[in-house]
């Protein structure tokens, strides 16, 4: 059994599919547009209006601007706190403000958010107390806010695992007759994990109302997108799950809000999940502990400064007459006050009771934990005596 047919050994068959598939091509309704959706030029000039993505109301954009400014100030403050040793580590999302805030604004307060470690800005933008958000990174506990009350899962570190949780939560909500939408954040790198695949697929099969929002900030720590995928863009993954997808300029706040609003509406209307890829850029190192100069050029970073989402929206809003010097100053003042309050509250050294270690492993501690708790209690008593 050794013969092998010597037939047709030809080069890449890339040309074999007609470039213009019939209108009935099942991929046609699922693939993203070939270029990221953009409604503002990088300098803030509006592009021609388009039918598929009408511009969000101006009040929404103004509120978006406000939150972006406050969010950026929060982010700077968190980085400063890290330098002062107040935080164990901080992953900045500077440069991703349009995504962080756009996602939150596209949702209702009773929708669920599934954030990663990078989404601190989104969470404060959702109204969660920044001290509670930073509890994880300050190191007193793994999650400082009440996820159930805030409809916000704990910031997720094991990459892509939250994609499946979002599918389950969203399905569970609709199963119980609620019209909640779940939005799961995920990074470009994390789309390589199996749990991304399983999550989007579960959501698709169960028609769960989830928006998967990929912030493609071009790096996974040091690894550039080119080592992560050979796909035309990450949004092209949707069709493989039967999930409609879109790509958007992630530094265009107007486009981000328009695209996410549509995606959320799609999910809420019962059409199942939606995948959005935002092309953006991580202006800072991966975290304060990272040294980005090892793997990327200053030039590259500089080029992205010209596409700053905050300045872009400001320019546009000013041109539309929705923002003037006074308003800008007022918002800057709000941001400063926010940062000052955060700074002050983070300067108070938190106290964490070691005995609480035993309280939340199970609903009730097991006999083994009771034994260990008594041992620790005795140790602490002895240490206190020694100190006295």
């Amino acid at each position, binding site marked *: 059994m050794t013969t092998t047919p010597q037939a047709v050994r030809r080069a890449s068959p890339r040309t074999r599919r007609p470039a213009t598939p019939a209108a009935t091509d099942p991929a046609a309704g699922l693939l993203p547009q070939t270029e990221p959706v953009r409604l503002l030029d990088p300098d803030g000039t509006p592009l021609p209006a388009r039918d598929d993505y009408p511009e969000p109301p101006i009040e929404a954009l103004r509120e978006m601007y406000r939150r972006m400014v406050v969010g950026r100030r929060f982010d700077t403050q968190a980085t400063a706190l890290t330098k002062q040793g107040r935080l164990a580590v901080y992953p900045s999302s500077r440069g991703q403000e349009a995504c962080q805030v756009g996602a939150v604004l596209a949702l209702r307060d009773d929708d669920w958010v599934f954030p990663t470690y990078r989404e601190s800005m989104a969470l404060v933008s959702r109204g969660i107390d920044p001290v509670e958000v930073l509890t994880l990174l300050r190191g007193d*506990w*793994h*999650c400082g806010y*009440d*996820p*159930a*009350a805030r409809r916000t*899962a*704990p910031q997720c570190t*094991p990459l892509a*695992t939250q*994609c*499946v*949780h*979002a*599918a*389950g*939560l*969203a*399905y*569970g*909500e609709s*199963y*119980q007759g609620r019209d909640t939408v*779940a939005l799961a954040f995920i990074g470009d790198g994390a789309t390589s994990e*199996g*749990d991304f*695949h*399983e*999550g989007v*697929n*579960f959501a698709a*099969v*169960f028609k769960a109302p989830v928006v998967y929002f990929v912030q493609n900030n071009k790096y996974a720590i040091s690894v550039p997108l080119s080592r992560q995928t050979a796909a035309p863009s990450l949004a092209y993954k949707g069709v493989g799950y039967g999930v409609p997808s879109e790509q958007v300029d992630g530094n265009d706040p107007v486009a981000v809000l328009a695209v996410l609003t549509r995606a959320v509406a799609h999910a809420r209307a019962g059409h199942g999940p939606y995948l959005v890829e935002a092309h953006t850029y991580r202006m800072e190192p991966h975290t304060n502990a990272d040294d980005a100069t090892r793997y990327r050029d200053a030039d590259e970073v500089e080029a992205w400064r010209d596409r700053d989402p905050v300045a872009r929206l400001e320019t546009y809003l000013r041109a539309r007459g929705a923002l003037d010097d006074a308003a800008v100053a007022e918002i800057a003042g709000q941001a400063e006050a926010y940062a000052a309050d955060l700074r002050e509250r983070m300067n108070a050294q938190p106290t964490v009771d070691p005995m*609480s270690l035993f*309280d*939340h*492993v*199970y*609903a009730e501690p*097991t*006999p*083994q934990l009771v034994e260990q708790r008594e041992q620790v209690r005795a140790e602490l008593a002895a240490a206190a005596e020694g100190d006295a």
Partner: protein
Amino acid sequence: MATMTMAKALNAALADALLEDDRVLVFGEDVGQLGGVFRITDGLQARFGDKRCFDTPLAEAGIVGFAVGLAMSGLRPVVEMQFDAFAYPAFEQIASHVAKLRNRTRGKLSVPMVIRVPYAGGIGGVEHHCDSSEAYYAHTPGLKVVTPATVSDAYSLLREAIDDPDPVVFLEPKKLYFASGEAQLPARTEPFGRAVVRRAGTDATLVAYGPAVPVALEAAEAAREEGWDLEVVDVRTLVPFDDGTIADSVRRTGRCVVISEAQGFAGVGAEIAARVQERCFHALHAPVLRVSGLDIPYPAPMLEHTHLPSVDRILDTVARLQWDDQPDPRWLTQGSAA
């Protein structure tokens, strides 16, 4: 009392849970129309509809992660992993989320769920279908780990697991699925967390769980011929662990053999041996010995009997419990630095 299989008792427990608690959802691979490859979910979809009992895409991390999300929304997922080794793809979801979400959120979020895993061997199954995976879960704080050895316990422990506020890995000994026992449903046996003396005896204590319990009982019967009266304790819940019942028994008998089907190294049997000698040192006439699976990958069907703890291997081990008060020469000569 009626005679029924453990499979039937488990099926009844699921049905009763579905009936009594609207929040319960049963899902996994092939659990719907097929009723599961072991038929543990047989008839549930027909009776409760395909929203309460359903098939999922074939992806175990997906199944467990989906359950996490459902639990967050207030539902009570009961998922089936088709076989022991096929739960491994879900390991990250189990270890990093299921086990930790309550702790992570200081109890604000909890994800009560039951992860049912048909486990262990003795059924002539091919590779990957016979792993004893209990140690991976028992070593992971935040999980409760349960394994029934009787028909009544199967029902009772599964109902308790579903009602439990914490996530439970529920390990079902495959080889006992179709073994029959007497049970009166809805059975309620000793509460969760309690070990049980399955056979009283005076000379030594055999500590066993899950698939090893019937083997231990058989060995205890056979030991009568050798003149030994052995006590057999069924651990039932590996986490939480019932130190009291086991230590009481060993203090009475003065000797102990721990029996588990899994490969021995760093398994639950090691934990039990370590705990017993810590707690019963002065009552012990001999070291706590272990009988376990060999430290090899689970072998092919034709060799599994060599791997598994057998009555003979248990009796050989009991014989080494220094009945004549002489140290075991094995440990005096072996283990010197090579």
